């Protein structure tokens, strides 16, 4: 499974996982999961439109996801973007429906956009994927501190002179770029599980923001690597494994939180321990 033609797959999937882990950390922290669901799904319509007019699929994805990000930012109120996001995804999916009805090239190409074609990545795809990924990671690193503060406590950020509306927009643009680079690789339905599962689980294992961010990347990497290998060995679709590992991380995080909560308030257990070993 490390054969030559799969090298592109490993490279592209690794890049996608790193970016998903980084962006996902802030998506979960900001409660922006709905936007992270809407943009990849809506951007799918852009790809369909591009196919219809014979343009580059990535270009169609980029245009639609950036337009979607702008629409959500323009319509949304501070800290409440759910209605704006819902309207945006509806508008985008409706146009996708229109485009699909006009095109004859249906099943395989569209199926690939929904579920990804990670095992069929061409070498020409790796470079643009890496370039967009670099932009995303750089943007998050530059904005790291104001983004962190505006995510955890928007009121404090505002009082400290941070333009929280700009932060909203900037981060939506990052999600749009992640969408553009990740949808051709892992598909618009499955990028969501990479964006949410690893960072949601990472929160349970550490209370330091940079460590949680790093752990989120590690778990995302494990997800795609395990999934590629499992898919290759079993001949089952890779998307199934990506979704399943995401769920496994999330479950592990829950178990860990429940266990930690139990360790913190084990009234009878603690009393027993205290009786046995006096604290020194």
């Amino acid at each position, binding site marked *: 499974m490390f054969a030559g033609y799969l090298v592109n797959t490993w490279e592209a999937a690794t890049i996608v996982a790193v970016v998903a882990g980084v962006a996902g950390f802030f998506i979960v922290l900001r409660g922006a999961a709905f936007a992270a669901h809407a943009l990849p799904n809506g951007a799918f319509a852009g790809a369909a439109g591009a196919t219809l007019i014979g343009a580059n699929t990535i270009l169609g994805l980029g245009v639609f996801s950036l337009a979607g990000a702008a629409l959500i930012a323009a319509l949304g109120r501070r800290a409440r973007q759910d209605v704006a996001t819902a309207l945006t995804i509806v508008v985008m999916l409706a146009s996708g429906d229109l485009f699909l009805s006009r095109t004859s090239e249906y099943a395989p190409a569209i199926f690939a956009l929904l579920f990804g074609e990670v095992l069929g990545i061409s070498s020409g795809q790796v470079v643009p994927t890496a370039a967009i990924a670099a932009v995303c990671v750089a943007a998050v690193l530059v904005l790291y501190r104001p983004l962190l503060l505006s995510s*955890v406590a928007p009121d404090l950020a505002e009082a400290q002179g941070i333009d929280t509306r700009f932060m909203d927009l900037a981060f939506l643009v990052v999600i749009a770029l992640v969408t553009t680079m990740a949808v051709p690789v892992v598909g618009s339905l499955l990028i969501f599980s990479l964006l949410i599962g690893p960072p949601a689980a990472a929160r349970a294992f550490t209370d330091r923001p940079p460590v949680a961010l790093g752990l989120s990347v590690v778990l995302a990497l494990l997800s795609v690597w395990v999934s590629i290998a499992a898919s290759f060995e079993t001949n089952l679709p890779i998307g199934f494994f990506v979704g399943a590992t995401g769920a496994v991380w999330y479950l592990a995080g829950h178990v860990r939180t429940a266990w930690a909560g139990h360790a913190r308030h084990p009234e009878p257990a603690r009393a027993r321990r205290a009786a046995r070993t006096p604290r020194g």
Partner: protein
Amino acid sequence: MGSDADASRPSPPIGAPSATNTVLELDDVSVSLGGRTVLEDVSFSLEAGEFCGLIGSNGAGKTTLLRLVLGLVTPARGTVRTPLGGRGPKIGYVPQKISLEPDMPLRARDLVALGLDGHRLGPGRRGPAQRAAVDEMLEAVGAARFAEARVGNLSGGEQQRVMIAHALISRPRLLLLDEPLANLDIRAGQEVVRLLAHIAAEQHIGILLSAHDMNPLLPVMDRILYLAAGRAVSGSTDEVVSTETLSRLYGQRVEVIRTHGRVIVVAGTDAADPTHDF
């Protein structure tokens, strides 16, 4: 707790010592939001080291006034001067509703550190100097004990202290607090008030604290800014909290009752209204 706060460095007054000590000045300020006049002709000034209670019922305009000082609301008329710096880290702010999610990977000390550099770009590396400043501030507000705890898991009173440390770490000359006592039990509220009075004197900071009940603040307030129906009156507690002054402010007869060291403001009977004819 007093001994905790004593550990903080006796901060020298920033800026020229001969300069005026006024940290906030409102001059005939009016604010309209959505066509409605929220504040009307409010004039007020606050000196460094003064503890001022911003008192008024719900909807009296307290939050709007604080947001005005922060520069987040633009006055329709009048001027707001914060002589020691405009918006930004020079004004410390503790907002009213603090909703920190319990599963956020963020320790109390991380939030305080963001008060120091949260507005800066780049991931930033915090050296020993920054860590020492964070430790010192956590100590000063009595939060050292839970510095490493997940901030979302702390109690309301503990989060309040972390927020105060977050606001104070940039060494502002003016600290604004929006209803910090609203979600605290009586004991935790008293502790926060005592801590703030100590900080105001020790670090020579002007404090403007909003509350709907003035009683917990009576022992420490140097002055009061009383809001009712968008209008304001300020002065010493004795000047402001009198039947005559508050009746004029409310535009109707109210009575101030002092009992057991507490103040109660109640509506008077219409029949006995000598001050106004509406």
